[in-house]
């Protein structure tokens, strides 16, 4: 096995090594909190670099390669695929995770001896997220999905000083397991319907479906439906979204950003991997189904976000609506991948920033973040309030932020694919959505201060906020660099 052959799984190997080193540090050092965090951060950075190297190694996309046990391209049953799609996903996931970990930095330091477990779980969860996007096989994807999910179940309930965290963990675990089972049942039926678990290669799902017309497609349709449901749960698309508000509210604020952003990126990427790579020939079946889910998500997310009184819940429902917008890109098939990536990436950056502010305002441990806590933030912490306003503008899709460009691209994609009704629905919900975000802005800027307590922004969080705010505005003004890369990040 030569070095180049290791490249496709390099990020996972690096993260695993990082996780093990963090555990070892716990044994070797007396108080390894800070060192462990640095190791974890370094591992994520190295994984990101590895993904960049992957991208470069791929060149113009001509020499994509599969990977199996022997480290050589194999014709049958590839497990992992290295293509522009997975490399792009890797960079985004790892960078967002670094930002998420930076937001959780203060939480890590206060966890004491438990920080080692926390960091290990974060690293392994991130590895799982990337596995979801880089798998060339349904079973591999399922393993990645479960790796990420199981680690996140624990992380959701990690700070158990408050009852909320318990509740979040149990709810997330029970509903998440249910969704996983639905997903894997879909995988099993897909196996029965196509005779393969692989996305690529000889006898793979794609090849089988491209060469044969399934005379009795009932099981195939069911299988697709179940797989879509499983993934919709992960990306909080309606009506499979209901865990999100409760879990976001109950989980430690320091880590919710990572949960919300990371899982969404990986979930959408994995859904895209399945639909674009394995089932492109069935687009006429799955695209309308996704359009319905997208429409439901926009409506439900927007309406329910408007009636919430807790910022974390508002953001969760807003996430549901955004999941709907992102799904709009999917109905356009291959044409929509670029806009999907752009939306997912910029949304993830914004969401990390938003939850970083939440962690500052409401503390990075478990607990809710009632609107009252936010009133008059602009006079207590003006810079923080303005940064939050930028993020809210992006979430609302106001021009000159990434949110606007992202919305325009997915709207165009859906319209071009012939889903005009979906586009109009999205427009209407976007306008209703303005109310949601401006309500929060109004509380921050127009109401009197809730208290006199000083708002302390830890340096790591400040860094994250700077990154999030700058990218939100800069990529909103000049989206081309990212948009061009996103358009290149096509699956094999």
């Amino acid at each position, binding site marked *: 096995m030569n070095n180049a052959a290791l490249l496709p799984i390099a990020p996972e190997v690096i993260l695993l090594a990082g996780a093990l080193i963090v555990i070892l540090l716990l044994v070797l050092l007396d108080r390894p909190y800070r060192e462990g965090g640095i190791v974890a951060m370094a591992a994520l950075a190295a994984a990101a670099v590895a993904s960049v190297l992957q991208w470069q190694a791929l060149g113009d996309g001509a020499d994509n390669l599969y990977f199996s046990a022997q480290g050589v391209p194999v014709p049958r049953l590839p497990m992992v695929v290295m293509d522009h799609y997975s490399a792009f996903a890797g960079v985004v996931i790892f960078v967002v995770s670094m930002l998420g970990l930076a937001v959780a930095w203060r939480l890590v330091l206060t966890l004491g001896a438990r920080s080692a477990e926390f960091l290990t779980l974060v690293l392994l969860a991130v590895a799982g997220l990337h596995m979801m996007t880089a798998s060339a096989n349904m079973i591999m994807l399922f393993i990645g999905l479960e790796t990420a999910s199981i680690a996140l179940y624990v992380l959701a309930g990690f700070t158990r000083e408050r*009852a*909320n965290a*318990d*509740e979040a963990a*149990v*709810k997330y675990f*029970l*509903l998440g397991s*249910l*969704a996983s089972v*639905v997903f894997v049942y879909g995988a099993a039926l897909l196996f029965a319907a196509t005779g393969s678990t692989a996305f690529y290669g000889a006898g793979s799902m794609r090849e089988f479906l491209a060469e044969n017309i399934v005379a009795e*497609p*009932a099981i195939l*349709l*069911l299988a*697709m*439906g*179940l797989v*879509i*449901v499983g993934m919709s*749960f992960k990306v909080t698309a*309606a*009506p*499979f979204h*209901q*865990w999100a508000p*409760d879990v976001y509210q109950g989980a430690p604020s320091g880590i919710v950003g990572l949960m919300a952003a990371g899982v969404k990126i990986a979930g959408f990427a994995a859904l895209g991997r399945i639909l674009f790579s394995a089932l492109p020939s069935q687009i006429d*079946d799955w695209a*309308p*189904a996704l359009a*319905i*889910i997208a429409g439901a998500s926009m409506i*439900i997310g927007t*309406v*329910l976000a*408007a*009636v919430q009184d807790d910022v974390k819940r508002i953001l969760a429902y807003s996430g549901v609506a955004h999941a709907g917008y992102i799904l709009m890109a999917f109905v356009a098939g291959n044409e929509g991948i670029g806009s999907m990536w752009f939306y997912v990436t910029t949304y993830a950056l914004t969401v990390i920033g938003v939850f970083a502010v939440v962690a500052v305002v409401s503390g990075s441990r478990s607990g809710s973040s009632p609107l009252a806590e936010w009133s008059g933030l602009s006079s207590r912490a003006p810079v923080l309030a303005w940064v939050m306003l930028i993020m809210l503008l992006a979430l609302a899709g*106001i*021009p*000159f932020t990434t949110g606007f*460009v992202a919305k*325009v*691209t997915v709207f*165009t994609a859906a319209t071009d694919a012939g889903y005009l009704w979906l*586009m*109009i629905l999205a*427009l*209407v919900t976007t*306008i209703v959505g*303005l*109310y949601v975000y*401006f309500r929060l802005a*109004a509380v921050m*800027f*127009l*109401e*009197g201060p809730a208290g006199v307590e000083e708002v302390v922004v830890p340096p790591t969080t400040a860094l994250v906020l700077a990154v999030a705010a700058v990218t939100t505005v800069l990529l909103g003004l000049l989206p081309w660099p990212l948009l061009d890369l996103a358009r290149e990040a096509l699956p094999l």
Partner: protein
Amino acid sequence: MIDYLWVLIVLPLLGAAALIVFGKRIGDPWSGRLASALVGTAFLIAAGFTVPLVTGNGHPETVELFSWIPVLGVEVSLLWDPLAALMTLIVTGVGFLIHVYAVGYMHGDERFGRFFGYMNLFIASMLTLVLASNFVVMFVGWELVGLSSYLLISFWFVRPAASAAGKKAFIVNRIGDWGFLVALLLIFAAFGTFEFAAVFAEAPTGLTTGMATAITLLLFLGAVGKSAQIPLYVWLPDAMEGPTPVSALIHAATMVTAGIYMIARTAVLFGLAPATLTVVATVGAATALFAATLAMGQRDIKRVLAYSTISQLGYMVMAVGVTAFTAGMFHLMTHAFFKALLFLGAGAVIHAVAGEQDMSRMGGLRKVMPITFWTMVVAWLAIAGVAPLSGFWSKDEILAAAFAHGGYFVFLWAIGVVAALLTAFYMTRLMILTFGGEERWPDGVEASEAPPILTVPLVILAVLSATAGIFNTPFRLGLEHFLEPSFEGVTQQLPPAGATVVALAALALVVALVGIFWGWARYSRRLPVEEGGFWGAAVEGYRVDDWYGRLVVAPGKAMATWAAEILDGRIIDGVVNGVGGGVKSFGNSLSGTQSGLVRWYGAVMAAGTLGLLLWLLLSGGLF
């Protein structure tokens, strides 16, 4: 030179950025001076750009800045033509005077710097709207204008009313913006581009009447929101909670006229949709009369002016509705002068009587505030339509055009005349209650003339209000000629020629004088009791807000809550309480609501799954 058109927008934008960030440090009064200087500079530059247009050496120019969304062919480009020039000069010119006034008016406010930051932001947004050369950039400006006006209305957010007014303005305007957005969508669907030039060039041949009607009706919905027409006018009176310079700048001179400007800009499209034009003219005339009756009954001086603004905007909308676009723009200009003057004068008065806005507690200010009084007299006569002040010419041109349009529109003309009578009446009432009679202001208030920084802008505006009529008299249609390049290919309704126009003008003058006399007769001796009946209803704005609450807002809220309960599992709450028991709670975390049950979530998920599977199979034709 014209390539540097973007400087007009960037100057106030820089000011906004600097003042929002460093406003506190720059402080009072330097942040105000900086903001005023920037707007003044923008005015001078705009004037420079206008010279070639006036001398006839210039022609409309499009300045391309950069390509923004190439997929949709959206360029960020600006358009400089007579229409844009006129509007830019009004915005920066009147805006400059109001900025200067505000330096004095806002003196001592805690957030002085922040205020001017917002004001500059507003000017930048308004210029973006005005200078846009395509629908997307215009929409961006449109939205930014809404945002900055929201910030300014609720500037004194500690007052709950100000905060609520800001929200109300924001929400009501969303309805209009929705219309604008959908119109953009249809335009793109019909033409494949957002550029004004391309759209207007193709429209006469490439657009069916039905499509044109749909697009223009939706655009008009946007204008109805922004320009406060029936039925979306309700936000404007409440917006008076903002500082008075804001009312003058945004709610009289500039932002509310954006709707008129937008219709004038898209005159080609409106010209293709006669049905829409009838709707536009009718709504305008109805608003002009309706708001005038409301203005008659107000006791708060700023609310009189607010309803008066709505009424005057009604005239402008009526003008564009009868395709007298130039007349509409002309009235827009003169109105900007005299209404800004009225607001600023009102602000000076309010300042003098220690924040009192109720006219029944003013009176006798004529002697104390001579400069304010005499400038206000000019504005009063101008808005009432007394020759030869500016309002006479512009209002008369609108009415004459409506009359000349013939048929049904003669009826609208009659409504306009009645509204003019009421206008003269309520303005006379305002003047006498404020400046005439005995002093009724509260004890301990030492009213005195405002300082020069307040009065100098008043005087300048008074001169403009008095003389602006010469730009476009029936004898010399200067503005008409100036704007011609912008309305190329548009059939405009001109006032009738010859004796008719003289007769109409004479009638208008008589009506104005009758209105003034009526007001004089009623208020000059003693104050009549104005309670109950019409007066009570008018003060409450005919309870329109109540009806909105009952008919629109409450059902909407109820539906959202209902949806939330079903989807959130919160309906359980009510049911459990109703059934009344069986529920045990353990531990501190378990008290309270019974929402958030895992099983309910699971059931919804499963039902969703089943629904999706069924749908897939059904659409696959397998059942």
